[in-house]
Every structure is written in C-alpha cells, then in structure tokens.
C-alpha cells in the first residue's frame, strides 16, 4: 500500500488527494493527477501484461500515446473497455484495471511456453505454420491463436454511455500544445483569428513540462501556464485538453476525439463520455512534437527497459522513480537530461554513451554533478525475466561492429534514448510527401499539399529558440492572411542548453555465440531476426515486409518501431533509408473508441423516426407498430389476446365484408406543376399520359434506364397544369431525385416544377363494399355515386368544414377511396371516419392486412418491384406503350428481357391448403434433387387469403406464363420446410377487377 517509488516532493500531481485503485485485483494508492501507469510505477509495479506472440512479460516503455506495452482492460462504472493504454488513462477513485493477453494470469502465463519451448514463431508464422492440414485450422489452430493472442475483451452489453459529434469551423487549428503550438496559437489569437488548440494529454505544455529551459525569465512550464491562461480568456480561442486530433482528411477536415469523462469515476449528468469533433480549418499548424526512439539490444523488451524521456516524465510530472539503480543508455544528449534528474533526486545513475567523446553543456553539467559516464559503451543485453536485474554491457568499436569484453552491472531499469523521431502522422495523412532528413535520421514533412504547416520538433527542429521564432511568425502570418490584423508580438528570450550531435547508431550487434532476441516492434513481438527472414525470403517492399512480419501493425502503429525497422531493411539491402521509404500513415493516429465514432446514432437514433399525424390515435387504439423505412406504421390493431395472424385476418376480412380504414400518410407525394407537366409524366411513366382529363387519376409504372421497374403509383390531374403524384413509401426520395435529374439535366427545356408534399397531406384509405355509403355520409354535399365519382376519379370535398381531396383508387382491390386533408387535420379526419363509420362496422386496418389484401389480388409492391424485375415480370406489360418513348424503353429490347421463358409473377397455393409458405422460399421441380437444386423462382410475398381461407403466395417464376397448373415444391432451408405447391394465377381474387368498379 506504500508508494515506495514516489519521491518526497515535486511533480505536478495533487498530493492532497489520495486515490485508491485496483490492478489485477490488488488495491493500490495513487494521487490525483496520476496516470494508471505512474501510479503503478509509484507502487513498484512493472509487470503489466504479456506480449502478443510470445507472451513475454511486459512493463512500461513510454509515458503517453506511444506506449506499446501497457495495454489494459479497464472497468469503470459497470462498463468495461479493452485496449486502454495505462500511460494515457488518468487515475480516478475506484479505478479497476486488468492485464490483457495473459492466460491464466500475468505472473503465470501458459502462452509463454511459446517463448521457452523456442518454437519461436518467426516472421510469417501464421502463413506457414498453420496452413496445413486445412481441417486443423478451425478446430485447433484458430481457437488456440484466438485464446492466446487477443488484446482485451470488448463488452457485449449495451453501452449506457453517450457519445456526441460536433461540427466546428476555425481559422487555425493547432495540433499539440508544446512550445510550437502555444506560440502559434498565441500569435494567431492576438490577430483575432478563430483558433482551436488541441492537446491530447490532460496538461498543456508538451515538452515544456519536463525540459530545463527558461523563456522570458520564467521556467518553460510557467511560461506555458501563462500563455494557456491568457488564451482561455480570449473569446476567439478554444483550448481543449484530453483531445487527440487523430485524422487529417480531405479539404482540411480534421477529426478530434475529446475524452470528456474518462478521467472521472462517473460521467457527469448531461455529459457525454467522449465527443468527436469534425473540424474544418482554413489553416492547420501541426505541432505534434516528436517521440524518442529506442536503441535495439538483446532482451530489450524486459520490463524496466524504457525510454529515457518517459523516465524523466515520470519523475518530473508524477514524482515517481522508475528505478533506484538506473542505467541510462544513450546515443545523444537527451539521456543526460534524464540522468541529471535522477541525480538531483539522490539517485546515482550510470550513463552509457555510444559516442566516443561528445562535448556539450549538458554533458558538462552531468560531469560536474559527478555522474558516472562510460563513453563508447553499449548495453548488449538486459538480464532478468519479469524485471531488469542487471545488464550485460561492453565497449564498442568506432565502426560499431566490434564489442569489447562483456561486463555485467547491477541495475533495476535501463533508460534508453536513440534520439528523436518527429511525429509526422498528421502531415503524412494530409497528403504531404515526407522527406528524409539526414541530420536527424528521420522523416520530416515535405511540400504541403493542403493548408498545413508543421513546426518545431514535428518538423525535426529541436532548438527551442528556433521553434518559438518560427511558430510565432507562422501564427502571425497565417492569421494575418485571414483576419488582416497584424499585431506585433515580441518574441521572448530563450535560455536553453546547446546539444551536441547524436550518434547514428541504432542497433547493438549480437556478441559471439549469443542469440538474444532484439525487438523492433514491442507490441507485435517483431525482432531483428524476423525482418532478416522476411528479406531472405524475398520480401523487398517495406509495405510487404510490414505485412509479413507485422512490424508496426499493432495498436501503437509502430510509433517507436518504424524507423528502426527501416534502418534494418536499409542496412541489409544496402540502401539508404529514404530509398526504402516508409509505410503509409493512415488515420487514426491512435485508437478511437467505436462509441465515439458512432456518436448518438445508436438504437432508435440510428435513423430518424417519422410518424403520421394520426400516430397518437393508433397508439391509443392498441396498434402494434412496424418500421416501414423511417416510418412507424400500425401493423395491426390488437384486440384482446389476438396475435398478428388473428388480428390481421380479422381486419382484412372486415375490409372484404364491410369497410376498413388504413393510414396511408406515408406514401410519397410529389406536386408537379407547369405547362409541360403532362409531357414529363409521359416520358417518366411507361404508359400514355397526354390525354388524362382533369379530375382523373391513372396508375403508372416508371423504369430506370436499364429497364428495371423503379416504382409505381397513381398520379392525378388536379387541374390543367397541376398533377399530384404518389410513390411507394420506400422510393419517395429516389423518385423525387429522379424527376429532378431529368428536369435539370436532361430535359431542361421542359417547363415543370416538382416538390415533395409527402408531409403536407394526411391520407386515409377507405376500402370495402360499404365504403361508398360511408363516403356519402362524410361528404353529404358531394355526389360520390358511381357516376359522380367513377373508378379512378377525383374530386374535392368538404369534410365537416375541412377541405379534402378524394381519389377513387384502390390498392386492396375492393371498392375504395383515398381521402387526403392537410396534415394538421389528419387526426380530425381519422376520428370523423371512425365515428361516422361505426354504423358500417368500420375497423382500422394495418400494414399486415393491407399486404394480405393486395397479395390475394395480385397487386405488386416492393417485394416484387425489388430492383430485379421488368414490367413483364410483374404482369404489367399492358402498361408499356408501344407508341411513345420513355425512360428505360430501349432497354426492354435487350435479349434477356424478351426470351420466351422469361420469369413472371404467379400465385402459389400449398397442396394441403394449410401450410404457409415462408417468404424467400425457392421453387424447385424436384425436392430430392442433389444440391445445388436448380431454382425456378422464389416466393416474394405470402399471406393467408381471407377470401378462400387458405395460404396464398406470390412468386416470380421462370416461364411463369406457362406454369399455371403445375405442381412444384417450395423449399426453405432456413425454416427447414419443403412444401408441395400448385401454381395458379397471381390474380387469386376477383381476377376481372369488378369490385373496384362497382
């Protein structure tokens, strides 16, 4: 329970607030301001996981986003999230975390047998080892690999957290709040530009939090705090911590994930867990800094081996010693800064510098402090299994090929610095072609492609003075272009220690007779030998080497491994690094939670819900609803204990015997006006429209240019140049776009306007033999007799003071009408129809009864007009004009569309008149034929015919025209059914269509 590795004072944590947390079931204490990593290290916990492939023990390697090892399963407020980096997770009271990728436990891991038995799965092991025999894959290999190689477990529960999306626009977006980001933001903000400054860590300041510099007579950290405080007061600036810009997309769109609640034990009321920002920026300043890179040596993955910058950060930010006997292994001056910090806190480090006799201010300071420094010395291998216990070290020749005598020295951590790699991910994602900078052995951004500029360490500039100068200037210049303000800002004085040149050295040679694993990629366990194998086996492109070895493909995306991998390939191939090139950087820069990407669009919110004006009436009257596209429609109105089958049968039967009313508001409605309206309809529909009189409706079918039926519906001529088109519910939006396409692009000479009026009208279909009697009572002043309002007739009427449109059209095949009123009167209309209809035994009917009625009449709907059928297939060829041209007509001459045995709609009745045929069943000649049994057609829609009281289905059947009377089998492997059936006409009820005209 003691934080044995926490120093007395110092760090930026809040020592007044202790927090307790659990790791692998054990309780520890930390402080507010800790990360899970710093709190564990304060408690001396270095073993946090197992590696992906060999299950080797894993500790902490970094202190932030670059961490390849310390990936944990997090438990918070009854939820669990996998793949959380312990170095990024802020500590909160009650936090619980567990190691991942260890089975059965982190201390005893069965998978580590991979390591000890020296099966040592080399490069391409998945491809080679598990290829044969094939039958072993599913039963043995895959379950084993899955169990052994997972990284955490996703929750299977519904996520109760909320995630939000936000769209934002700004003049200047700045990625990273280190010295460059702060300077750029400050200068641009002073010019009045709209600035967003994003920092992924909880604390602003970047490297200024840990570096020993002085800006304008303040420490770097104090200067940063002053700038941030001032920026926060400015109305034109948004300053965001815990916010990672992870993707740079086209046209200067960047996406940022803001962790709103992850640092708290509970999400605050009305707060999201995370917020995803889509930011369209006029200019982007990438100040994402750099990541220290490791030097490769034997067993360099042992817990206790970590980046020297991380060790310094744990000490300066969190007041934590990562060891009491540190060994610092460096090829540049950065290692000395870490050593000096150790020394200042009473710990004696040993520094191994691969360089022969470097000289600089920092080295002088280390010398003056009495730090033990060994030049031309390297770590050959770390010793210790679950924690570093000692190190084998040796002197190294100037050409870095020969090792001296191996010595062993005691140490409990090895802090390694192989110089710095600029973080160029965002620049590269933007399309910037990066270039190799010889002086720093790394890639930096090249020519900008979008409006982006990269400055500071991310651009390979490691001098603070130069970084501040260029960043202040860039901030002013970029904002001046936009705001036309030019407020001069004095650039503050900088005091920093000058560094000496780093050593171009990245990999310690193996000593004779030793075969240490030297890891390049710590998360995916890719060693130097794996890359050597890949190259030996002929892989040349760096992209291929990456995929074959999985180098840089883990969740850390090779932030610490990429450059060393490139160095190795270039060395073996005897090419320079820029010629090898780097693999493509793709978003996201760091893993983003799926919840944040999905946002609010989950469950019911994944699409809008549209309700008709009569919805509340349906609800009050026990409607059971069904999703119809985005609409909610009554499926049936439940009475007592009725189920769907019983209820819909009752409703359909009542339509056939009395009268029913159905809410048809959802139908698409398009108002068409203009002198050329008839001509447009004549080109859009397959049948003739030029002679439709005013006050008449007509059924029409429209095709796509490829001859496939697009939609059907009725269109009514309201007045001379005014038509009212209806579409199916599903195709409403597509039909409108279709009409607009032809009017705007193909036939702009047509003088027509179209507009959607779907939401302007509420619609009720009144159907059944008693519908005219009801209509007469609803419209006592109108002549709705068969002569006054014949089939396909239209009139306007007065519904108790409300203007109504009355169409005599029928989908049910019964005598039927559709009444439309303005939406606001929809409920009034509906209640009147129910009230007046009572004496005629009216019942409302839902979509299920509606389907039954249309199916037994052989009327086609979406299940037949499924994007694969032409008019003939639906028995609609009578509506295809031979005389005039229309959209898609030419395609109907295609040979496949005119074959003699072309598919066609038929009716299907089970021989036993009992068994309902599942929709989607295949029709076959012989139910015993070997698979694949030739399919003759499929069942498109099924119902229980209320007219004949037996099941009835529609099907699209090959040579349907000549199949009437044939006996076939309907087979549904999904429902495990084989049903003997007879093919009949699709017009099962009232084949002559007398009822609609009665």
């Amino acid at each position, binding site marked *: 329970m003691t934080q044995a590795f926490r120093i007395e004072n110092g760090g930026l944590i809040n020592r007044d607030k202790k927090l307790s947390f659990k790791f692998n079931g054990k309780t520890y204490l930390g402080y507010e301001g800790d990360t899970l990593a710093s709190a564990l290290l304060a408690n001396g916990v270095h073993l946090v996981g197992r590696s992906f492939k060999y299950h080797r023990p894993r500790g902490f390697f970094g202190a932030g986003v670059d961490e390849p090892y310390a990936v944990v399963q997090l438990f918070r407020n009854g939820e669990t999230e996998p793949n959380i980096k312990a170095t990024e997770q802020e500590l909160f009271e009650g936090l619980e975390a567990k190691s991942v990728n260890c089975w059965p436990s982190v201390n005893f891991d069965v998978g580590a047998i991979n390591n000890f038995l020296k099966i040592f799965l080399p490069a391409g092991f998945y491809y080679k080892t598990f290829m044969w025999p094939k039958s072993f894959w599913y039963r043995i290999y895959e379950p084993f690999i899955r169990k052994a190689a997972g990284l955490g477990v996703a929750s299977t529960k519904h996520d109760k957290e909320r995630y939000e999306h936000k*769209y934002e626009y700004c003049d200047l977006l700045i990625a990273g709040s280190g010295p460059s980001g702060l300077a750029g933001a400050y200068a641009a903000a002073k010019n009045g530009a709209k600035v967003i400054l994003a920092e992924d860590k909880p604390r602003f300041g970047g490297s200024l939090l840990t570096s020993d510099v002085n800006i304008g007579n303040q420490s770097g950290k104090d200067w940063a705090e002053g700038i941030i405080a001032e920026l926060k007061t400015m109305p034109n600036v948004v300053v965001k911590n815990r916010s990672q810009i992870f993707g740079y*997309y*086209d*046209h*200067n*769109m960047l996406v940022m994930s803001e962790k709103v609640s992850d640092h708290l034990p509970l999400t605050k009321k009305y707060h999201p867990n995370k917020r995803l920002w*889509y930011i*369209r920026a006029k200019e982007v300043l990438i100040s994402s800094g750099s990541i220290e890179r490791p030097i490769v040596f034997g067993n360099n993955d042992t817990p206790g081996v970590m980046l020297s910058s991380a060790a310094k950060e744990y000490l300066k930010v969190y007041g934590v010693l990562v060891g009491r006997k540190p060994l610092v292994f460096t090829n540049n001056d950065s290692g000395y800064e870490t050593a000096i910090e150790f020394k200042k806190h009473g710990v004696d480090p040993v520094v191994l510098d691969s360089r022969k006799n470097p000289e600089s201010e920092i080295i002088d300071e280390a010398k003056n402090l009495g730090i033990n420094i060994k030049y031309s010395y390297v770590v050959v291998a770390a010793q210790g299994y679950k924690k570093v216990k000692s190190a084998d070290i040796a002197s190294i020749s100037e050409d870095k090929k020969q090792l001296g005598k191996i010595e062993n020295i005691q140490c409990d951590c090895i802090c390694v610095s192989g110089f710095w790699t600029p973080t160029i991910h965002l620049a590269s994602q933007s*399309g910037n072609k990066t270039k190799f900078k010889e002086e720093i052995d790394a890639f930096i951004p090249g020519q900008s*492609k979008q409006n982006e500029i990269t400055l500071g360490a991310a651009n390979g500039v490691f001098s603070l003075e130069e970084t501040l100068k260029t960043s202040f200037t860039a901030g002013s210049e970029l904002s001046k272009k936009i705001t036309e303000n030019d407020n001069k800002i004095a650039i503050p004085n900088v005091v920093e220690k000058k560094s000496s040149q780093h050593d171009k050295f990245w990999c310690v040679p193996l000593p004779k007779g030793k075969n240490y694993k030297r890891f390049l990629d710590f998360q995916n366990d890719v060693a130097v030998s794996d890359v050597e194998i890949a190259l030996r086996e002929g892989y040349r492109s760096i992209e291929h080497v990456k995929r074959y070895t999985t180098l840089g493909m883990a969740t850390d995306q090779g932030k610490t491994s990429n450059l060393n991998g490139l160095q190795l390939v270039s060395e073996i191939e005897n090419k320079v690094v820029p010629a090898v090139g780097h693999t493509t950087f793709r978003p996201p820069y760091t893993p983003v939670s799926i919840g944040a990407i999905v946002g609010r669009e989950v469950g019911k919110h994944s699409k809008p819900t549209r309700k008709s004006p009569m919805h509340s009436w349906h609800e009050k009257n026990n409607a059971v609803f069904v999703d119809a596209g985005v609409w909610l429609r009554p499926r049936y109105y439940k009475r007592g204990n009725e189920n769907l089958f019983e209820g819909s049968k009752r409703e359909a039967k009542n339509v056939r015997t009395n009268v029913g009313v159905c809410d048809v508001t959802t139908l698409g409605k398009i108002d068409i006006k203009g002198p050329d309206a008839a001509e447009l309809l004549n*080109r859009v529909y397959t049948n003739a429209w030029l002679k439709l009189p005013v006050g008449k409706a007509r059924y029409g079918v429209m095709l796509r*240019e*490829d001859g496939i039926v697009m939609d059907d519906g009725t269109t009514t001529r309201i007045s001379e140049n005014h038509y009212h088109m209806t579409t199916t519910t599903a195709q409403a939006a597509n039909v409108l*776009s279709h009409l*607009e*396409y032809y009017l*705007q*692009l*193909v036939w*702009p000479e047509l003088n027509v306007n179209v507009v959607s009026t779907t939401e302007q009208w509420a619609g009720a279909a009144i159907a059944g033999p008693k519908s005219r009697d009801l209509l007469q009572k609803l419209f006592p002043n109108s002549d709705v007799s068969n002569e006054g309002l014949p089939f396909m007739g239209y009139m306007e009427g007065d519904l108790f003071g409300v203007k109504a449109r009355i169409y005599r059209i029928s989908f049910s095949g019964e005598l039927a009408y559709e009444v439309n009123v303005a939406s606001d009167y929809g409920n009034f209309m509906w209640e009147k129809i129910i009230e007046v209809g009572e004496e005629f035994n009216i019942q409302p009917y839902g979509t299920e009864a509606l389907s039954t009625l249309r199916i037994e009449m052989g009327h086609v709907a979406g299940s037949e007009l499924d994007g694969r059928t032409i008019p003939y297939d639906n028995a609609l060829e009578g509506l295809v004009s031979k005389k*005039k*041209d229309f959209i898609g007509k*030419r*395609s109907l001459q295609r040979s496949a569309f005119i074959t003699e045995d072309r598919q066609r709609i038929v009716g299907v009745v089970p021989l036993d008149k009992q068994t309902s045929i599942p929709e989607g069943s295949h029709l076959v000649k012989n139910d015993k034929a070997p698979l694949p049994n030739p399919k003759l057609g499929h069942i498109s829609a099924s119902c229980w015919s209320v007219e004949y009281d037996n099941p009835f289905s529609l099907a699209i059947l090959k040579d349907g025209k000549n199949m009437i009377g044939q006996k076939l089998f309907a087979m549904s492997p999904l429902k495990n059914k084989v049903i003997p059936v007879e093919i009949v006409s699709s017009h099962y009820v009232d084949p002559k269509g007398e009822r609609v005209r009665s």
Partner: protein
Amino acid sequence: MLHINCPHCGMRSQNEFSYGGDASVKRPELNKEVSDQDWDNFVYNRKSLRGKHLELWQHISGCRQWIKVERDTATHEIFRTFKADEEVA
C-alpha cells in the same frame, strides 16, 4: 470529407450532397434509333478515370440542384463547380 462549392449555396460539406456519376454522359434523344452498342455505352459503360473528372452531384440536403463538379479522382482536389446548365469550358 469533401468541401464542395455549390454554385447556388456556397461551400458545404460532402454529407449534404449525393453523388450522381459521370457528368459527360449524354442521354440519347427520345424517339431516335439507338444501336445496342450506343445504348449499352449510355446505360452501363463508364470510364474509371484516374485524375480530372467531371461528375454530377445533387445538393440533396440543400437547394436540391444537380451540379457539375470537376474533381481529381485520385487526390480529391476540386477544381471548379458548375450549375447544371453552365457550359464547361
């Protein structure tokens, strides 16, 4: 996400638009004989160009106008946009 300059409305994000394919396709005139080959070319055959491409977009959540967009299919750079009836020089 692309940023498209609707000639009627101004700069808008891609999610307000829907894509409409190659703008250079000309529908054969009505009531004219069309060979199988010409009709197939109109209905089905498209060049999948790398580089500058003139294409149709509809500003579906805006002014509902079909517009022409000159875009590089490889880099997504948008050079110019045109109204439906504007001649593309």
